[in-house]
């Protein structure tokens, strides 16, 4: 190879890594999926119901709004183990979705009485009746668990 040939070749560039957002099924899709969600519901999903266990708990308390019980019994009601739901239950207490009370030697949990939060829960549960929403929300939760 002479000098003129070498000059005619384009300068070698290492391959640029493809941006994650340009790959099908990742960032772009995620954004597209979330873009048409109600912002308030999306926010609730991202900040409050951000695990499958929390989703189960929120649905359970929405459908049985006057439930007052211990972690062991609540776990049984949603068909899970108490040790598995403990952190999520406590997160929901911190998010003020649930209230925690002492009853004698027992610690019991119940749905918040706060009307605004109850309205948010109602909005979320209503949205989750829609299959499209559920698909998007599940996708979001799966991404969140990675």
């Amino acid at each position, binding site marked *: 190879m002479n000098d003129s040939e070498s000059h005619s070749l384009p300068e070698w560039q290492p391959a640029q890594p493809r941006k994650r957002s340009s790959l099908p099924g990742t960032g772009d899709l995620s954004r597209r999926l979330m873009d048409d969600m109600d912002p308030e519901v999306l926010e609730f999903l991202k900040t409050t119901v951000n695990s499958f266990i929390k989703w189960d708990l929120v649905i359970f308390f929405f*459908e*049985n*709004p*006057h*439930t*007052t*019980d*211990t972690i062991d*019994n609540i776990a049984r*009601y949603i068909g899970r183990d108490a040790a598995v739901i403990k952190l999520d239950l406590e997160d929901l207490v911190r998010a003020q979705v649930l209230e925690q*009370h002492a*009853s*004698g*030697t*027992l610690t*019991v949990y*119940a749905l918040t009485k706060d009307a605004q939060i109850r309205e948010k829960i109602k909005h979320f549960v209503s949205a989750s009746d829609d299959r499209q929403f559920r698909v998007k929300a599940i996708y979001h939760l799966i991404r969140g668990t990675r």
Partner: protein
Amino acid sequence: MERVKTGISGLDEMLDGGFLGQSANLVEGAPGTGKSTLGMQFIHSGIMQFNQPGLILTFEEFAQQYYDDATNFGWDFRALEQANKLRVIMTSPEVSYSDLGGVDGRIQTMIKEIGAQRILVDSLSHFDRLSEDPVALRGILYGFINSLKREGLTSLLTRESGALIGELESPEEDVAFVADSYLMLRYVEIESAIRKALLVLKLRGSDHAKDIRQYEITRNGIEVQSKFEGREGIMSGSPRRMADSFVEAFVRR
């Protein structure tokens, strides 16, 4: 003495006008005999006919199940909850016992919030898990029932019996001693068909019907009908015609 009507035609007549005010009333029966339906009807009638708000404490069935079951009878429990006339509380014996035994518990607060006068506890059988000692269990049940009375509630307490047909031995802690009235619901086999029978076994401090009545669960709830005529051994589950048993008694001799 003040009477708390169940609103169930035929049953109030058997109870000489209804349950006694602030009393504890035990309804015992096998699965499917209609204990919960009778209890829900007691609560619904109290609200709709007598303006007496009510509470349902459920230890097993989901509140959602009560809303759905009530809808089948044309009773809108969700609307009654929104109107602050009803609360369906899913909880456990240990929590309800602790809550009502303490001060300002969540269940106590709900009783006061809606001014509840009636309560359905479904079912008392779940208290069995609180103690294996029958004496201790009887003490727990006694305390629980008294806390309901203290709150001014007339209670209907269901209890499951294991056998589908026939009489059972009473458990040692027998809450029937603690309750003010005791109603038994039984399946009865007559001519290859299953019917349902109701008996008021006990009504403390009051007269009551001594006969055994048939009842049915209809679209409108429980309807108590006529008594079983010409038969005996109804509560055994396999009644015989009285004439047959009369003949049998003499033939055997």
